[in-house]
């Protein structure tokens, strides 16, 4: 715990993150570049042809979206229980990004689905859970924007994030249960359990790339938020 | 149950981004009334809400007798706020009976209504009462609460001359019996009290 509070001082965070950021960005570009190249070079699947390669865009987006919500829940915990000063800022910065990745996951999932099932949307367990995750994100963003006072907005969103995080496994379970009720086995198996090595490398690389992308953008957004708040308080002080 | 004194030590109050007061200290002993004065926005309501335990303070302590924890303090307080808390569909008698039950206090509803001059309107739904009459109802409710410490926010607002007189008498009687009262007000309460001015 103490080590995380090293980052509690906004100025120290700005200094540290400023130093780390270029490396993060470079690593992101490398990972994404490697992933895309490997993905492009991979042979087509005998069942799905080239369209299986959308998986390289879709699956990492899915992982990142879920990871995003997990991170927000952790920030919420830090904010409420340990009163970590930057936790609110981090959660606020992460929510729109998580929503964007979820949206990306839904769109790529839909694009992947069209050649496979002939429909732009199916009520598959994974896609439906995803849609609900998007709503959870939108709820967080809406609540944050609707409450005017900043500290109150931060705490309310923290409570909502924790309630959502606790509920999310139940929601996923219920959607899974619902699919077995109506459609039988889920037809959306990203590569399935026997994913061959030639697909594994690009997938892993894209996964790392997306995560790094999330972290890079997140760091940038947190920095921006800290600087904005500082500017605002300086303005208020000079006016008073 | 009476309290020896309200002790406020080194209190700093922040509202939004504004610092309302810093290092505020005062003491109100049993049997005393305090009139809290100051311009609008000075922080009178915020101070009352802090004492009541609704609003956390940025620094300093507040103690009611021995109790300093926020929600425990709340159990010792009778509150009269800006708004009258009178549901339009309920009658004064129903409002007072409910709060007496909620506060597990004595149920001399008729007596409380008589003391504020609302006896004749006891069974009329509150939507038909005037603002001054609802304020009297709030006073009656305060009287019924049986709490030792009274916090009043603009108690004289909307009251006519008779109402203000009754209000002063009720607060005075409360203090005479060993209670404490702090009232944020723009006009004189008409009773003997200490004054604290926030700027």
């Amino acid at each position, binding site marked *: 715990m103490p080590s995380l509070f090293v980052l509690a001082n906004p100025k120290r965070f700005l200094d540290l993150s400023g130093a780390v950021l270029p490396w993060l960005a470079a690593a992101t570009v490398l990972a994404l570049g490697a992933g895309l190249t490997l993905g492009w070079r991979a042979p087509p699947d005998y069942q799905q042809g080239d369209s299986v390669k959308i998986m390289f865009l879709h699956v990492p987006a899915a992982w990142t979206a879920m990871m995003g919500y997990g991170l927000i829940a952790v920030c919420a915990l830090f904010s409420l229980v340990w009163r970590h000063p930057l936790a609110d800022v981090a959660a606020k910065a992460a929510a729109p990004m998580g929503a964007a990745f979820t949206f990306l996951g839904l769109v790529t999932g839909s694009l992947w689905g069209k050649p496979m099932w002939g429909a732009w949307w199916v009520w598959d367990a994974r896609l439906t859970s995803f849609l609900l995750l998007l709503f959870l994100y939108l709820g967080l963003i809406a609540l944050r924007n609707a409450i005017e006072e900043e500290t109150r907005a931060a705490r309310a969103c923290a409570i909502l994030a924790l309630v959502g995080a606790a509920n999310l496994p139940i929601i996923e379970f219920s959607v899974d249960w*619902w699919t077995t009720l109506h459609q039988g086995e889920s037809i959306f198996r990203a590569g399935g359990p026997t994913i061959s090595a030639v697909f594994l490398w690009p997938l892993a690389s894209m996964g790392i790339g997306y995560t790094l992308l999330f972290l890079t953008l997140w760091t940038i957004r947190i920095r921006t938020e800290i600087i904005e708040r500082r500017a605002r308080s300086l303005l208020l002080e000079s006016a008073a | 149950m009476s309290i020896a004194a309200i002790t406020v030590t080194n209190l700093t109050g922040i509202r939004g981004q504004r610092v309302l007061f810093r290092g505020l200290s005062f003491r109100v002993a049993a049997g005393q009334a305090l009139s809290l004065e100051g311009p609008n926005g000075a922080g009178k309501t915020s101070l009352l809400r802090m004492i009541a335990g609704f609003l956390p303070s940025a620094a300093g302590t507040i103690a009611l007798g021995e109790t300093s924890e926020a929600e425990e303090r709340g159990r010792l307080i009778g509150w009269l706020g800006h708004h009258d808390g009178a549901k339009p569909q309920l009658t004064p008698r129903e409002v007072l009976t409910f709060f007496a039950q*909620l*506060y597990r206090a004595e149920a001399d509803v008729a007596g409380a209504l008589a003391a504020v001059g609302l006896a004749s309107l006891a069974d009329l739904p509150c939507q038909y009462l005037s603002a001054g009459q609802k304020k009297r109802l709030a006073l009656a409710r305060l009287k019924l609460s049986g709490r030792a410490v009274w916090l009043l926010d603009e108690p004289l607002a909307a009251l006519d001359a008779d109402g203000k007189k009754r209000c002063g008498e009720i607060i005075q009687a409360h203090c005479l019996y060993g209670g404490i009262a702090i009232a944020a007000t723009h006009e004189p309460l008409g009773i003997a009290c200490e004054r604290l001015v926030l700027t």
Partner: protein
Amino acid sequence: MIALVLRDTRLATRAGGSAVLALAFFAAVATLVPLGVGADLRLLARVAAGVLWVAAVLAALLSLDRLFQSDFDDGSLDLIALSPLSLEAIATAKIAAHWLTTGLPLTLLSPLLGLMFGLPPQAIGVLALSLLIGTPSVSALGAIGAALTLSIRRGGLILPLLVLPLLVPAVIFGAGAVQAALDGLSNGALLLLAAFSVAVTCVSPFATAACVRLNLAG
């Protein structure tokens, strides 16, 4: 605590209260759907489970934004918060009162609507039972949403967005139970629904109280 439950119930059932509103909305939606999809009773029976459950959830949600708001606006919430009751007890009382004036009446009306949708008797029974078990979770989760949106001016609009995703398990299990009864199967839906309802109702007062505490500071 009973005093608070009774008072809220009385407020909701008097003129201008919310109990009748929920029933009317439920009936209205249940009437609109056949107008939209056609009067084929076989089709209606197949969609009845889902439609009626969704309609019930929406009807129960209607009055949620008023759960704390009206007491907050007229200063009663301050007074109630200062009573000997803890905020958690107050939250529980409010949830109970809300269920008594929305969930329970909706459950009682549901057999009639089930008939209108051509459901056979044992499915109607399961419908009523599922609503009885499931609607407390709507009140419980809704209370968290109501407490979160207390200080927002048009909070009533954002409340459904916050609460509906959280209620998905209730709708899935509730409607699933009715569907199973219709198909003559048995799945564990009612048990899952009961587990969800109990879990949510136990946890909600704490989350709700935390949100109310947050908003009392204003």
